């Protein structure tokens, strides 16, 4: 494995370590903890009142337009980071390019704002 791949392989190891930590502590707990099942213990908790309907109730989603906006800006961030690293080399040309890019995206935000997307209805 090359040094480059090795430096990234550590990520996999650490992900595995997190799983191992959870498995170990829960395994240790299963030896110690009691198990006295009673039906009341498994009812969904709603501040002591018996739950009404299913837990997967309908709820008003005001977030989905924000989610769309988020995707737009997050992709923008992916493009901005490599530019930020190389800005010294790219010089004025790179800066002008990025100004154009950010202004277009800011226009998108202004449009969404004017359309009332950012208003909490």
């Amino acid at each position, binding site marked *: 494995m090359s040094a480059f791949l090795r430096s990234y392989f550590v990520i996999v190891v650490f992900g595995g370590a*997190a799983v191992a930590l959870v498995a170990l502590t829960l395994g*240790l707990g299963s030896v110690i903890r009691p198990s*006295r099942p009673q039906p009341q213990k*498994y009812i969904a908790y709603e501040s002591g009142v018996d739950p009404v309907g299913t837990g997967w109730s309908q709820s008003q989603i005001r977030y989905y337009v924000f989610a769309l906006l*988020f995707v737009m*800006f997050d992709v923008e961030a992916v493009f901005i980071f490599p530019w930020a690293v190389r800005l010294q080399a790219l010089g004025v040309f790179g800066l002008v390019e*990025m100004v154009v890019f*950010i202004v277009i995206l*800011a226009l998108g935000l202004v449009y969404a704002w004017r359309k009332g997307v950012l208003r909490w209805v």
Partner: protein
Amino acid sequence: MTAALHLAYWQTTTIKVLVVMGVIPLGALVLAYVFLLKMMSHMQSRLGPMEAGPHGVLQLLADAGKFLQKEDVFPERADRAVFALAPVVVLMSAFLLYVVIPAGPRLTVSNLDTGVFFALAVSSLSVLGVLMAGWSSANKYSLIGALRAAGQLIAYELPLVLGVVGVVIQAGTMSLQGIVQAQAHGALLGFKTLGEPYILPQALGFVLFIVGAQAELTQTPFDMPLAETELVAGYMVEYTGFRFLFFFMAEFGTAFAFAAIGATLFLGGWYVPGVHGTAADVLGPFVLGAKIMLVSFFIFWFRFTYPRFREDQLQAVAWKYLIPLALVNILVTGLLKVVV
């Protein structure tokens, strides 16, 4: 020779994993004890826990012992696999943050070229865990809490990510080790030896980062997802025992990591002017630790001071103020970098 090298790689990796496995609970314990238990109590003119150990130092260990003995309860309607997996995802996100944080010139798990970018990407993994926890619990409080958390975390991830771009522009690298070096080689008020912490030229970036981090950690002005007075504990409401403790550990472990990243990006990280080589490796963790405590002091100070944002105010602050400010910050920093 290659066999020996491979062995060495596994040995160092094992040591790193063990160290981080120690650092995360230790960091979480220190932050929770010093700030959550003691600082908050004293700010509210009370003593806080005093019984377990001198001044209540062992309180959290006693709590962990208690949680270990709790019965493992799955709600009857829960989606069991997802319910069990959610704390793992959140904890994994906290673990992976520690991969890139440097504590000395050689004390780093892996000095990735994409350092900051990786850290920000990994930190947003926890949104997945939170949504999984809220959805699989089959509980109305959990579901509302998870949706609020998702809405908040995606809104505040943008100021966080865009606020960091200014630092990347100044340093010309995304590697955290490189950013520390860039600050060490900067000149503060013409004094070359002092270095230049980026909090001075990137003050706006630092504010954006702290506010974004506060929201990502769901600390109080931004704790709509948890809102103990209305949602009890939001997405965690059905979790008991150690599964609950994993969320707690991940929250404070992530707070520790975010404070470390903030200290590295804006306060110069482990660097001490005039100290190089092995001495810097010895001194680095302590210097970084002191800066972590400073940054987390601010995070928790805000937490204990401000009342909770309403959901519409929360979204408005992010989209109407912080994100445009972050874009302006990027353009101004870029302009100064190219022109000056």
